[in-house]
């Protein structure tokens, strides 16, 4: 299909793009990196999700993550320039990562190839949905318009089993999460409007799952819905079942949280992601 479409679609590994879509739409995925001590792994290239979470649970020191370099983006764009007029490059929210910036600098290094870099302002599968929307567009212009219209409507509702990882990564303070230092309280976090904000606190995972479904009910109508999980497929299935009851006829994709996002969410994270209509 890439051959018939005059523009390419590029994203990064934090889009948690399903392999099937990657093949079907010919979407380019630039990996971010996970660094354990002095070992660097390209997300989902040098390390699988399963290997990563196994290592995360036993690591004495938490891994760090880093954006692709501008040079890596330039290499990808240069390669795509051979048989495309341009590309749309949709990435992890700039409030969370330097990826967008690296893509922009990389794009400037490739003369004569039009790169439309999009800051998705979000994480994980809403980015994959944006890629899908772009890939199904007629032209780069149409893709840009369709994606930009949806960026402010992307939502990620997440339950983290612990805030340890997010906190250590400096992405959220406990005060922001509205939780005390004492009790094990699980916040439901909403990534929206370039912010991570707590929308609910619960003490048990089953309560969180119920709340997630209830929260989504208040967000209808929605298009593109997925349930994300970090090594918790059964609970993801429970959420999906709840969402299917709320949204008959809506396809609910189940996706896995990859290494880079997993570094900040920790294992057993769950999420409902969607784009509001």
């Amino acid at each position, binding site marked *: 299909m890439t051959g018939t479409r005059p523009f390419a679609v590029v994203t990064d590994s934090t889009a948690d793009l399903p392999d099937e879509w990657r093949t079907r739409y010919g979407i380019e995925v630039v990996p971010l990196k996970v660094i354990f001590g002095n070992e660097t792994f390209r997300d989902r290239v040098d390390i699988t999700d399963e290997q990563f979470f196994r290592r995360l649970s036993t690591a004495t020191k938490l891994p760090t993550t880093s954006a692709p370099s501008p040079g890596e983006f330039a290499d990808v764009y240069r390669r795509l320039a051979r048989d495309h007029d341009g590309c749309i490059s949709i990435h992890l929210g700039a409030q969370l990562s330097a990826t967008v910036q690296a893509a922009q600098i990389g794009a400037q290094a490739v003369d004569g190839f039009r790169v439309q870099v999009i800051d998705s302002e979000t994480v994980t599968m809403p980015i994959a949905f944006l890629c899908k929307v772009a890939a199904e567009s007629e032209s780069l212009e149409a893709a840009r318009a369709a994606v930009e219209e949806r960026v402010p409507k992307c939502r990620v509702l997440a339950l983290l089993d612990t805030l340890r990882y997010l906190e250590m990564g400096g992405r959220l303070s406990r*005060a922001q999460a*509205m*939780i*005390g*230092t*004492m*009790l*094990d*309280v699980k916040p439901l976090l909403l990534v929206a409007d370039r912010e991570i904000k707590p*929308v*609910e*606190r*619960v*003490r*048990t*995972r*089953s*309560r969180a799952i119920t709340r997630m479904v209830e929260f989504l009910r208040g967000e209808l109508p929605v298009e593109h819905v997925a349930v994300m999980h970090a090594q918790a497929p059964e609970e993801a299935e429970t959420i999906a079942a709840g969402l299917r009851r709320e949204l008959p006829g809506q396809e609910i994709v189940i996706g896995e949280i990859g290494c880079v996002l997993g570094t900040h969410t920790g294992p057993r994270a769950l999420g409902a992601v969607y784009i509001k209509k």
Partner: protein
Amino acid sequence: MASRRPVGVDGPLFKQALLGSLNWLAANHEEVNRLNVFPVPDGDTGTNMLLTLQSAVEDIKESNAAEVSKIAKLASHGSLMGARGNSGVILSQIFRGFARAVEGKSSLTPRELAAAFEEAANAAYRAVNKPTEGTILTVAREAGRAATTAAGDVEASVPGVIAAAAAGARAAVLKTPSQLQILRDAGVVDAGGFGLQLIIEGMLKTVEESESFHIDTAATKPRAAQVAMDLPEGGWGYCTEFLIEGNGLDVDLIRGEIEALGNSVLVVGEPELVKVHVHTDDPTSVITLAGGFGKLLKLNVGDMSTQHKRILDSESAAGRPPRANGVGLVAVVAGSGLVDIFRGLGVDAIVEGGQTMNPSTQDMLNAVDGVPYDEVVLLPNNGNVILAASQVRGLTKKKVHVIETHSVPQGVAAVVAFRPERNGDDNAAAMKAEAARVQTIEVTHAVRDTRSNGLKVKKGDVIGLINDKLEFAGTDYAEVVNKALGKLGPDSFELVTVYRGQGASDDELANLESAIRSNFPGLEVEIQQGGQQHYPFILSVE
């Protein structure tokens, strides 16, 4: 003898009668405390009633009002502010009903006195959602009926009516075990009812002797009265209080002038004695102004920032960004660990209190008025505190939601459900719903031998209560908790949070934890330092 007997109840006589009540209750309140239905360390009914009555008579002591209506009104106001525990709150409603019944009257005939007793009981019934017979309510009603019967006599006298009321109360108290199974099991009469009996008997003693008792000032030392506060934006200011004694004092005029100098103004009283309460940055001007009206008594100027240290979070609400919904959180909590937990969850002000130390309506009112929000959610976190907490609603200009949390776990569940961007009504509904989902297990030692809920309990036994109901007794904590968790049905729950109290040792905690983990492998167990007194363990099951 008969000629010396008072023919009507006027202000001075009613004042003496109430002081007599206070004296008699003070002398006997420990006996009331011992009438504890549950073998658990509990909010002491006698102490709660005594503190409520002290608050009722506090301002009366300074009053020389001739009219019974004025004394009754002061008693009504004072008891409402000082109400503690359920019996205290009902007592305050009895005073309120009495005050309403005698409104505008300078003296009461025996018949009017009896009618006022009856109306006092009616008011108490109306104040309770589900009136239970065999309690202070029944005693109040029977006292009123007996008084009315005596007042119908052609030779009815004031002492005769009060004597009949006292006899009616006594008979009703003796019958309470036949009305309430829990009293029968425990082999006691109702404590609140007995407290009321003592109050009426105290009146009778005074009226019969027609002279005042010597009031033991140490035992009846008045608590500093504080009244509703709306805090100035700029700072705490000074809480300034005093009484003005004079002749023909114009209450409305004084109120108008004081209002210009501060806020949270309360000016009440009578031409001879006016009580003033105001929050001001300039107490000197207030005092100078008031001094022009009459003689100032009981002047008390308190720096409110100091006063509030007692009740306010040390990190203080001021250190936090203002909450989007403008709703504050106040919780009644005791135990250092629990206080930290509630603070950590975002509670703005903590009122120290709980099981054996029931805070007064006034304590909770101060906290509610002290938080920088116009709408407040109040969590009593104890069954004995709920009624006193619900009185706060009528005493402040703020909108107050009282979530009827009966236990610490319910309180935690409610606070966890609070969302700073959601409005107060929706938060209150969500908090109530979440509190109801949590099951509470409390573990303590029986404070005496008893039978309750079909269980024979010996003093010192480990006892387990599920949602305030005594369910199990045994010899060690783990055994009782195992039974309680088994009864709740662990399959329907996911998480057990153990709040460790002061009385639990490290070994006891370790034993309990391993017992829960091995007997209920499906449950997650979280251990928290609660630091609460009297209950070695409180468990939240959800």
